[in-house]
């Protein structure tokens, strides 16, 4: 504030000019920031569109020879990402079964006991867990599951790494949503003699449902695109498999495989387009749930 005096005695028109110039700078900077999103979406849409057809969703990934034959004769590559879709679905469902209930309960615990030192400690741990790079969770799931339980790469290991990723996201969103509920509602419930567990599942959860749903959807959209931990755990598999003790593929893993195979280039555009559209729609859905059902 002290440096305002010399500024104010300065030439007005020059100050106005810098003012306007700075505004343009801010607008230009903002435009530059969002240009990549248009470039990425546009690029993927144009190049990935051609390969998207029914077979893309119903057939497993082709081998490199089939792809080479198709590419050399100018046809679209046969096959699709069905093995990735089933693998992703399997692992995401398993991870959700573990992380959603546990995350909700821990979030409620932290909210209900926020005066306790222990609860605040758990909240800090959750924050640290949220910052752990996903590749490290891959190492952890490898050590715990691949090495000691399934004795080989497996869908179970993949879902454990994804679940550890989801958990802090759900805990944080649960706690933050709960904190927005007016205390008067809880007090009214208790005044009527409502038991504690009934207060939680008849009042806290229904009242904050849209907030909780948003948290879950955002967590799901995060893990759906995760690749790194799955490379260390689920590995990938050319066949459609729903066995949790065996390796499975996932859509992002397939993108990685396609990327490493020069014959599959056009398939990688389509798979990336699909993954991006899917994850972004989930993201948008989460945000629309959040904005439509603002509590009270």
């Amino acid at each position, binding site marked *: *504030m002290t440096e*305002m005096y010399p*500024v*104010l005695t300065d030439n007005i028109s020059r*100050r106005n000019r*810098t*003012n306007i110039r*700075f*505004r343009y700078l*801010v*607008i*230009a*900077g*903002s435009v*530059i*920031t*969002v240009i*990549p*999103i248009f*470039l*990425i979406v546009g*690029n993927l849409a144009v190049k990935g569109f051609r390969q998207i057809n029914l077979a893309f969703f119903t057939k497993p990934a082709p081998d490199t020879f089939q792809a080479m034959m198709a590419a050399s004769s100018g046809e679209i590559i046969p096959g699709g990402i069905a093995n990735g879709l089933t693998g992703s679905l399997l692992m995401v469902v398993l991870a959700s079964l573990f992380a959603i209930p546990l995350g909700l*309960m*821990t979030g*409620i615990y932290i909210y209900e006991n926020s005066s306790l030192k222990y*609860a605040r400690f*758990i909240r800090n*741990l959750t*924050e*640290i*867990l949220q*910052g*752990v*790079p*996903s*590749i*490290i969770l*891959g*190492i*952890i799931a490898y*050590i715990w599951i691949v090495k000691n339980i399934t004795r080989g790469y497996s869908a179970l290991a993949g879902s454990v790494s994804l679940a*550890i990723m989801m958990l802090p996201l759900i805990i944080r969103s649960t706690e933050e949503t709960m904190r927005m509920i007016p205390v008067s509602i809880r007090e009214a419930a208790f005044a009527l003699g409502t*038991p*504690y567990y*009934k207060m939680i599942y008849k009042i806290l959860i229904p009242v904050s449902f849209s907030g909780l749903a948003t948290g879950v959807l955002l967590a799901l959209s995060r893990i759906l*695109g*995760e*690749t*790194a931990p799955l*490379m*260390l755990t689920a590995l990938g598999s050319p066949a459609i498999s729903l066995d949790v003790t065996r390796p499975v593929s996932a859509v*992002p893993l397939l993108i*990685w495989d396609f*990327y490493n195979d020069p014959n599959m280039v056009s398939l990688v555009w389509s798979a*990336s387009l699909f*993954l*991006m559209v899917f*994850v972004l729609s989930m*993201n948008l859905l989460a*945000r629309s749930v959040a904005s439509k059902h603002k509590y009270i």
Partner: protein
Amino acid sequence: MSGDRVTKVLLFISSLTILLLSAGIVISLFGGALPAFREFGFRFIISSAWNPTAGSEEYGAMSFIAGTVITSILALIICIPMAFSTSLFIAEYYNGTRTSGILRSLVDLLAGIPSIVYGFWGFYALRPLMVATGLTDQGFGVFTASLVLAIMIVPYATSLSAEIISMVPAELKEAAYSLGATRREVIFSVVIPSARSGIIASFILALGRALGETMAVTMLIGNANVIPKGLFAPGNTMASVIANQFGEASGLKMSALIAIGLLLFLITALVNYLGKLIIKRFA
């Protein structure tokens, strides 16, 4: 009444799993890293050797630490002007308008794009541009990786900065306006000074993101296990070397990779802690 007890116990047990999980992660990383540290000692951190040939195996983390730190800091430097202007746009110039809402959603979308899609897009769209500049032969390298990394962390820096800028009390700004200050002067003499620590924290947290990013960097940095010789030279990061080599590793090499994971864990935890600390003191 017993229902209450059961509920409370259940909630407590679920909170315990977080404790066990965190402890388990730290113990497993230390346990896995132990053979490498026992073999190489402190030299593991400062050495840049990476030789997996059986018999003369030698591993050091320095090339990867350097790669991670250089790409992340460069990404942060590129990200600062973008995130700074975007957050001013959202929270100051067009605060509360439709335009600001649209820009905010677009920036949020950037955060939603999966890392591997960024990497792939960078490989096919950005890399040829880098080759066209003539600065690199292949287009791979620290700068290409940092550029994509910068785009990836912009949303994190922006959303937090914008939130903090919008929290600056209107009275303070109005007082400056009433003294005849222009908007730019209000921004630099009122808004930024009073939101400074929050803005810094948002950039530190964005840095924390950049440090652990794996796929996009792996696809663009060139994967050379050396300390990068320049901004356009290839290198490797801690996360990338794990992603690239973990699958075929065993024995001492696996332990070395887990040790790199442990170091990465410690670095990101430290950076995130610093950011959270500043935020908490600000709030």
